[in-house]
Structure formats: structure tokens, C-alpha cells
């Protein structure tokens, strides 16, 4: 006890400095999240706690089922597109060439475009009298315009591509810093041993940039699950995602309990993915 007192006295300044941040994060992040979970277990009419009625209500509805499916699918499609294209561009950016500087600057441009604006732009491209349809019409692939926002897989692709346009630069930056951390002497050694390009990539590059890859993947997955602005702009009310579903339950039906339940399920989904991935990757490292 006395030791604790001395500790407090000695580090009074440090405590004071760190306190505002801690209070803010507790009060404005942790408490709201708990509150949100609390709402989700609260009876909408009587206010009784806990009850599973809200979960029963939304899990039974088709709209929620679709939103869940769409969220998972768009994350899978978006992540595989972003990670593979991001990796290819990052690899290209490590090779020496005259145009590397300008190519790198161009790839970073979408980072300077607000997400809502990227949604607006994609709306012009994917609307039924938009530029993608016009392009396909001119090259003779289609006769009648395609309604990209009508739902189903094509809408998911539209949202995934819009998302990819905006966030791939972030993936590129992360992977590039990984690639640049690999000393070139390793490749020189493998060249002496006669390794092919594919062997270089799979046995040297990939294992060495794994931590960077993991961070990029986790950051992207979290944001992809929480996708909100792009569907709000692009998909309207036809194709819902978990984020827009929670929004619609609150604003259209004034049902904070259903909205809270949807958010809680989204939180569980993200946590399951992140911990699942870390456990999987971690255990594989242990095996090796």
C-alpha cells in the first residue's frame, strides 16, 4: 500500500498526462459499446433485461440474413481483390525503373479522396446510364444497360470494387514497407542457388513480409466488415450490409434494440475474424 502511494507520488505528472485519454476512451468508447450490447438484450416494450427477443426478431427477418450474407461476401471479395492487386503493385514498385516515382505517386492518389466522394464517383460509373455501361456498349458487349445496383452478386462486386479503389493504396504502403525491409543479399544468395522467380516469391518474399501482410489484412478486414458509407451511397436500401442495417433500424424504425443487436453481431463477427486469424497464423508459426 505504501509502495503504491510512493509510486503515485513519484509519477503524479505522468498519471495526470495519461488520464484525459483514458477517461475519454473509457467514457466515449467502452461505455457506449457496453451500452449498445445492453440495448440489444433489453426488451423493447418493458425494458426488462436480459432477453433474447431482439436477436430472435432480427435473425428471423430476411433483411438481416441478407445483410449478414452481403457483409461477409463483400469482405471476402474485397479482401482478396485488394490483397492480390496490392501485392502485385507493391512488387512492381520495388523493381527499379525510371517511372517508379511517378507510378508510386499516382497509386497514392485515391488516399486523397474522401470515402464519400469515392462513392459519388462510383455512382457515376455504375449507374444505369453511367460510364461502365457506356463503355461496355461501345465495345459491343452489351445492348441494354445493366442495372448494377439491383442486388445480388453484381451489386456486391460494385461495392467491393468501389472499396478497392479507395483502400488499395493503404495495402500497397503497408506491403511495400514490408518488401523494402527485406535485404537484397537474401535474393543474391538465392540467385546463386538458382532459385526461380516463383521460388523467390513463395519461399523468401512471402514468409518475410508475413507480419506486414497480417497487419494489412486485419486492418482491411475490420474496415470491410464495418463498411458503411459506400453502401449508403451506392446500394441504397435494396442491398443492405450490417452497418447500413443497424442504421436503418434506428433511423427508419426507431428501434434502438434491433439496431444494437445488429451492431453486437457485427462486433462478434469482427472479433471472431481477428482472433481466428491470429490464432491460425500464430499456431502455424509454432508448428514451423
Amino acid at each position, binding site marked *: 500500500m505504501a509502495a503504491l502511494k510512493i509510486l503515485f507520488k513519484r509519477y503524479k*505528472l505522468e498519471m495526470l498526462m*495519461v488520464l*484525459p*485519454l483514458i477517461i*475519454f*476512451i473509457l467514457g*466515449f*468508447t467502452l461505455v*457506449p459499446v457496453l*451500452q*449498445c450490447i445492453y440495448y440489444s438484450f433489453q426488451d423493447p416494450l418493458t425494458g426488462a433485461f436480459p432477453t433474447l427477443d431482439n436477436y430472435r426478431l432480427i435473425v428471423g427477418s430476411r433483411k438481416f440474413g441478407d445483410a449478414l450474407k452481403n457483409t461477409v461476401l463483400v469482405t471476402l471479395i474485397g479482401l482478396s481483390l485488394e490483397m492480390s*492487386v496490392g501485392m*502485385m*503493385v507493391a512488387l*512492381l514498385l520495388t523493381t527499379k525503373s525510371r*517511372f517508379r516515382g511517378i*507510378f508510386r505517386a*499516382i497509386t*497514392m*492518389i485515391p*488516399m*486523397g*479522396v*474522401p*470515402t*464519400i*466522394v469515392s*462513392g*459519388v*464517383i462510383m455512382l*457515376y460509373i455504375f449507374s444505369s*446510364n*453511367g*460510364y461502365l455501361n*457506356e463503355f461496355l*456498349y461501345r465495345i459491343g458487349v452489351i445492348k441494354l444497360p445493366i442495372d448494377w445496383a439491383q442486388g445480388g452478386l453484381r451489386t456486391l462486386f460494385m461495392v467491393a470494387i468501389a472499396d478497392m*479503389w479507395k483502400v488499395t493504396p493503404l495495402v500497397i*504502403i*503497408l506491403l511495400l*514497407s514490408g518488401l523494402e525491409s527485406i535485404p537484397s543479399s537474401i535474393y543474391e544468395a538465392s540467385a546463386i542457388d538458382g532459385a526461380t522467380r516463383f521460388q523467390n516469391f513463395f519461399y523468401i518474399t512471402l514468409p518475410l513480409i508475413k507480419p506486414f501482410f497480417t497487419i494489412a489484412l486485419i*486492418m482491411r478486414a*475490420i474496415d470491410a*466488415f*464495418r463498411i*458503411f*458509407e459506400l453502401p*449508403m*451511397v451506392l446500394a441504397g436500401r435494396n442491398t443492405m450490409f*450490417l*452497418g447500413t442495417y*443497424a*442504421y436503418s433500424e434506428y433511423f427508419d424504425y426507431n428501434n*434502438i434494440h434491433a*439496431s*444494437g443487436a445488429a451492431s453486437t453481431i*457485427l*462486433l462478434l463477427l*469482427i*472479433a471472431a475474424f*481477428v482472433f481466428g486469424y491470429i490464432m491460425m497464423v500464430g499456431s502455424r508459426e509454432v508448428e514451423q
Partner: protein
Amino acid sequence: MKLRKEMGLIMAERKIDPKVLQRRINRVLKALFIAGTIFFILVPILLLFKISVSAPQDILTQHPPFLIKNFTWNHWKRVLAAGHIWVPLWKSVVVATSVALLGIMIAAPAAYVISRLPTGIKYGVLLAIFSTRMFPEVGIALPISVTFIQWGLVDTNFGLVLAHLIKVLPLMAWILTGTFDSIPKDLEQSALVDGCDKLQALVIVVLPLSLAGMAAASILCWLESWNEFTYAVYLCLADATLPLKTYYYVRRGNWFESAAYAVFLTIPVLIITFALQNYLKSDYLSGALKY
């Protein structure tokens, strides 16, 4: 030199070495991929600008032309003359600036302390701060909106600033910890030996050295707030921020206004992003990777 080149060509014509062929195909594929990427990145932005300066008959048609046919500044003039843009613009500027200033005041001292913690604890604290990113924003915004309605903070700038800080503070603490890590501990120690107290050592020694990092962090957070949409849509019912206003025009199906607003929204971000490109490369994100 020239002779050798010609010799090489003749050799290649005579007998195409499969390895050389392979290399050439690779080079062509690479160039195609780069060209495709650049096309994919640039065309959307050019289209946005094009729509904001095209006459309606070029856009509201079944087959829009790809190039600007009938150029006009009319949409811009109308948007500026109608004056609906000034209120949201001012609101966005005020909120973003307050977020950046308040954010640095809260996050910088805390980041300094975190950076001076023993490595194991530091890693844990940073991971805990990072894990707040996993919480869905719609889940946080819902109770915040319910509470702010009770407190009368909906539609106020202060309420929105508080909400934006939720998003910005973890990021800021993250970046600034990296900044303070780069300042050697020995410098403060020698200041202490010379008779400064802790606070003096901080203000005289550490603060000037960290100014650049703090400036970069606050500008990045200004941008986060400028772009922010989710909390704004939950907390602004009557007076919108600029992103929200853009969204309203989109919902109304008004292409030209939304394009002009979108360009307006993008310009400061694009300029700052390029000015800060060096920071975006390393310091901004490497905080996540260094530990």
C-alpha cells in the same frame, strides 16, 4: 554501341531464344498491368471533374460521351451563388480544426507517457488502444446519439467534435507514440541532471523536438474529421457537414450539385495528402509495425 545493338537484333531474328522471348513477354505484361492500374486510378477522378463542368445534355442521356463536349461553369456558379455550401463548409472547418486541436491536447501528453513505459506494458497499451478500432462505429454512434439527444448535444458542433475524437484519438496516440519513441531518453535525463524538473524538461527539451510529428498527426486528424461521415449522419439532423450535404444531394439524384460538392470536399484533402506523402509512407503507419 550501335553496332552491338544491331548485332543483337540480328541474332534475335535468327533464332529466338525462349528465355529472351519470355523476358519480353513479361515486360509487355508488366507494362500493360501498370497502364491498367493507372487507368483504373485516374479515370474516376477525371470523370468526377468532367461531370462538374459538363452541360446537362452530355450527362443526362442514355449514352454519355467520355470526353467533355459542352463545357460549362454553370454548375459551379449555381452552387456558389445558391450559397448552401457556406454553412456546411464552415461547420466542417470549425469541427475539424477543433478536433485537431483538442485531439493533440489530449493525445500528445498520453502518447509521451506511453512511449516511456517499459516495452512489454507499452505493447499491451498500444494493442488495447488499437483494439478499439474493432468496435463497429454504428454500435458506438447509436448509444452516443441516444445520450446526446438527452444532453441536447445533437446538432451542436461540440457534440460532433466529441464524437469525432472517438475516432481520432486512438490514431493520434498511435502516431505520436512513434514520434516520442524517436526522441532519445538521454536528452531529458541530461536536462534533469542540469536541474530542470520533469515539466521543464518536457517543455524545453521534448516539445520542440516533437513539433513536426505533432503537426503531421494533427493534420492527419483534421483530415479524418473533414472526411468523417458515420458520426455526422447519426448526430447532425438539421445542419449538415460537407460530406453529409454531398450525401443529401446524391440521395436526391442531383448529379451536378453532388459532383461540385464532391470536388470541393476533395481538393483540400488531395493537397494535404500530397504535401504529407512522406509521412504517409512511414511514420503514419509504421507505429503499427515497429513493435
